């Protein structure tokens, strides 16, 4: 098991594996998202309180969940890079940031659009869930800005890993904000028993899995790019690029 992890942490080995894995994750993710979207939009019955507006849940929940998951991947990889000095883990952290920022922006926008007909407002500045999710977006921006402002990759890796670790506090706040404070946002529903009918819940799980697979595919591609850039002066990159088939 450890041997396998050590092998995976080797940049050339990871590059080859991700080259095979990313398209499969992407294709299976696309199929699941297409099926889940069709179910969510046209098959699932409408909610008795929210009407058809509730169908936004099928894109809002996966994007909100990915916004937090990407951050946890980014912070955990940064910590692994700091503690064990594994080069690949900093590449994972750097690759996760823009995707996480994209899904956080999406979660904020879809939440705001959903809030307009349900709460009568696009945005509520005092709401803990909305504000903590907005802070999460700023943390992503701060992380990317810090990384690009430092020319030395090793220094940039260390500084951004520390920032990512500090920001974990906000992810915990995003998750529990609806339980700790009174919020316009509804409480936990997806994983709570009796809150959603199976007809509505199953397509949501399909969307969650589909979005996760798509995220995985995008992440692998970006990690590959990071690895390529960081290892650009190594022999294996030289051999791979100058070989007849290339390696992209």
């Amino acid at each position, binding site marked *: 098991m450890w041997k396998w992890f050590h092998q995976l942490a080797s940049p050339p080995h990871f590059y080859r594996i991700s080259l095979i894995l990313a398209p499969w994750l992407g294709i299976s993710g696309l199929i699941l998202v297409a099926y889940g979207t069709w179910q969510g939009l046209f098959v699932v019955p409408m909610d008795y309180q929210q009407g058809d507006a509730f169908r936004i849940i099928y894109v809002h929940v996966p994007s909100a969940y990915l916004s937090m998951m990407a951050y946890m991947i980014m912070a955990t990889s940064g910590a692994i890079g700091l503690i064990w000095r594994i080069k690949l883990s900093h590449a994972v952290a750097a690759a996760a940031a823009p995707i996480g920022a994209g899904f956080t922006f*999406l979660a904020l926008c*879809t939440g705001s659009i959903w809030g307009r007909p349900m709460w009568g407002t696009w945005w509520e500045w005092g709401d803990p869930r909305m504000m903590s999710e907005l802070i999460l977006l700023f943390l992503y921006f701060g992380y990317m800005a810090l990384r690009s402002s430092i020319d030395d990759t090793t220094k940039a890796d260390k500084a951004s890993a520390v920032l990512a670790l500090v920001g974990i506090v906000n992810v915990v706040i995003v998750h529990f904000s609806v339980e700790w404070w009174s919020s316009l946002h509804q409480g936990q529903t997806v994983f709570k028993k009796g809150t959603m009918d199976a007809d509505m819940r199953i397509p949501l799980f399909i969307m969650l899995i589909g979005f996760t697979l798509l995220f995985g595919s*995008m992440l692998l591609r970006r990690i590959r790019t990071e690895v*390529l850039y960081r290892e*650009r002066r190594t022999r294996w990159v030289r051999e791979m690029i100058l070989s007849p088939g290339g390696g992209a």
Partner: protein
Amino acid sequence: MDSLSMGGYGAYVWSCYGLTFVIVVFLNWRGRLRQKRIYREIEVRLKALEDRE
């Protein structure tokens, strides 16, 4: 027509799905673009080095 109007919530529902599509395509496109750019840069540098050698 019913699925388009979504019981009066059509604008909200469809704009959310449209935005999701745009963001996912954009993230994927940006990732591919950066990969191609980095790959090309390294390729050009290596070919120049090879020619010099």
